[in-house]
């Protein structure tokens, strides 16, 4: 039975027994959740609207039922885009996790509180800055007329500007940079559960730093790794600003492909179907990671 029904029933029991109208704390809590639920509702409605549009027989309006839009997605144009999205999201996730684990470990184990705060702020900074500003920053640094290319040209080390951006590598770089804080914070909180004494115990029993990292830290970080990984994957799979600005339209991730269907092509049902595919992929990843976490919990016996 859903929690709110239980609450309702117990509320009714309570009222008939005491014949006094009184707020139970949990029903008051539901009331406080109402504004948040109201804010989420338009999004859910939009999703349903999109779902309906994706099975419309007409590309420009909701009219009849057809799976035509989904069938039309099976074109090299869209499949390449899908493959590219999965590839970039997955590889950026792996890279971000590899970068974030040592960062989280260092921040959590730093003894000085002021150093810890400073490092936290530095890691957090990209989350406060607008994605546009971050991307323009990369263009200023790596673009054809950017700092690096200008320097290399002036030093005579290259004859033509290197193409550091407007390709997959540039987009990958941007995805990694913008999503790094999303991984560091969940990892920090699960790193706190890895007591320093576990590592000391392992080292006392003969484990080198590397062995205790592999045998103790990584397994205990697993829920954090899975959580951080799925957040980063979902964030980067749906990336729009980064591939737009750093990919220079040459790296057509799903977000861009969907936008192109709408803007120059006016293929609304196609865009909706593409959006549904994107939502489905991300949902699958989240479900899979939740399942992985719950499985590792069972093994831990807690």
């Amino acid at each position: 039975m859903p929690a709110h029904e239980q609450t309702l029933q117990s509320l009714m029991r309570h009222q008939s027994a005491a014949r006094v109208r009184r707020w139970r704390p949990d029903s008051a809590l539901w009331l406080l959740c109402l504004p948040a639920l109201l804010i989420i509702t338009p999004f859910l409605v939009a999703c349903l609207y999109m779902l309906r549009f994706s099975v419309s027989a007409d590309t420009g309006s909701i009219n009849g039922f057809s799976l035509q839009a989904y069938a039309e997605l099976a074109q090299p144009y869209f499949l390449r885009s899908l493959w590219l999205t999965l590839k970039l999201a997955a590889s950026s996730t792996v890279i971000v996790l590899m970068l974030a684990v040592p960062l989280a470990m260092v921040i959590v184990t730093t003894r000085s509180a002021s150093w810890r705060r400073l490092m936290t702020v530095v890691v957090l900074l990209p989350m406060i800055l607008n994605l546009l500003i971050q991307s323009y920053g990369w263009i200023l640094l790596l673009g054809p007329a950017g700092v690096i290319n200008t320097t290399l040209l002036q030093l005579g080390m290259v004859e033509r500007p290197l193409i550091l951006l407007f390709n997959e590598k540039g987009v990958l770089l941007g995805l990694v940079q913008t999503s790094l804080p999303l991984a560091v914070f969940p990892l920090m909180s699960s790193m706190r559960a890895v007591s320093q004494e576990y590592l000391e115990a392992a080292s006392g029993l003969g484990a080198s730093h590397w062995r205790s990292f592999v045998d103790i830290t990584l397994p205990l970080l697993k829920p954090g790794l899975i959580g951080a990984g799925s957040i980063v994957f979902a964030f980067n799979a749906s990336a729009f600003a980064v591939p737009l600005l750093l990919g220079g339209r040459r790296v057509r991730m799903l977000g861009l492909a969907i936008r192109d269907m709408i803007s120059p092509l006016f293929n609304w049902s196609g865009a909706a179907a593409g959006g549904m595919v994107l939502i489905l992929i991300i949902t699958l990843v989240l479900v899979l990671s939740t399942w992985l976490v719950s499985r590792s919990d069972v093994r831990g016996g807690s």
Partner: protein
Amino acid sequence: MGIDLRIAGVSKHFGEFQALKGIDLDIEQGSFVCLLGPSGCGKTTLLRIIAGFERASAGQLLLNGSDISAVPPHKRDFGMVFQSLALFPHMSVAENIAYGLKFRGVTGVKRDDRVAELLDVISLPAIADRPVSSLSGGQRQRVAIARALAVQPRLFLLDEPLSALDAQLRDAMQIELRQLQQQFGVTTILVTHDQTEAMMLADKLVVMKGGEVCQQGAPQEIYSQPATAFTAQFLGASNILDAIASDQGIVQLFGADTVFSTEEAPGTALKLSVRAENVILDRAPHPSGGPCAEVEFIRNLGASTEILVKNGATTVRVRLSSRDSILRTLAIGERVALQFDPEGCVVFRADAD
């Protein structure tokens, strides 16, 4: 027996704070040494330096004559039991116990045999495959000890391992721990703030205070001959009374002569350490004179009876056998004479520390 570990002039600074001030200590082969002291006395820091988790700021650790100060902990071959036990939560009991074995080339059947042997030793043969989170406090304790002993360590180190257990279980574990140590014949260093535990376990007691060793020796010796009022109090002397040296070289308490003599100059401030069970109460006034006090509180605890007597602002705690004949008529407010059993009493200079 030879010296196993020699701690020579070990100091430790944490920034401005000096946690250890030149500790010298010899640990004999096969002995059970307890580092005893209040929190902040440096006992845990010393143990962590021995284990290799902290580096000493100065001094040396000599294991069998060779300096191990710079050897990292995973190469020291010591077994440590932590206060939190630090059992690996993602491993089963058997995996925990077997963890140190894989670094010693013990694998396969040999490893399983060793794990089974240790589970037998700690009398928990059936829990090998259980996750550690499903164990009770006492079981976790035993598993942590087994994990440390499985690797046949050169030194067995324990940091307040029993402090999380309830009193009854702690008592049983103390006896078990002592028996295990004897069975394995392993040189053992245990840190505790509990004097009963230290007395129960140690061959050698090291009392620490403020980063220094106050006194070391056999437990019975320290118990009966504490060198300072601090040690006396820490080892459970319930009364540390202000006294004074009289002109005749007698220790005076509450302005009256006691049976103790002193060599200190007349007028020197002294402290008289008396255990509650070493005070004898008599009807006042006593034919031989001596200090008196007024009964303030009486409580029969079965075998013994606790009495508080008061003179001025000073309260003296007395523990009599409940069969003591004076108790039959003793009443609150009554004046009694205090006699002392010299066996359990020690006189210090008040300025000695």
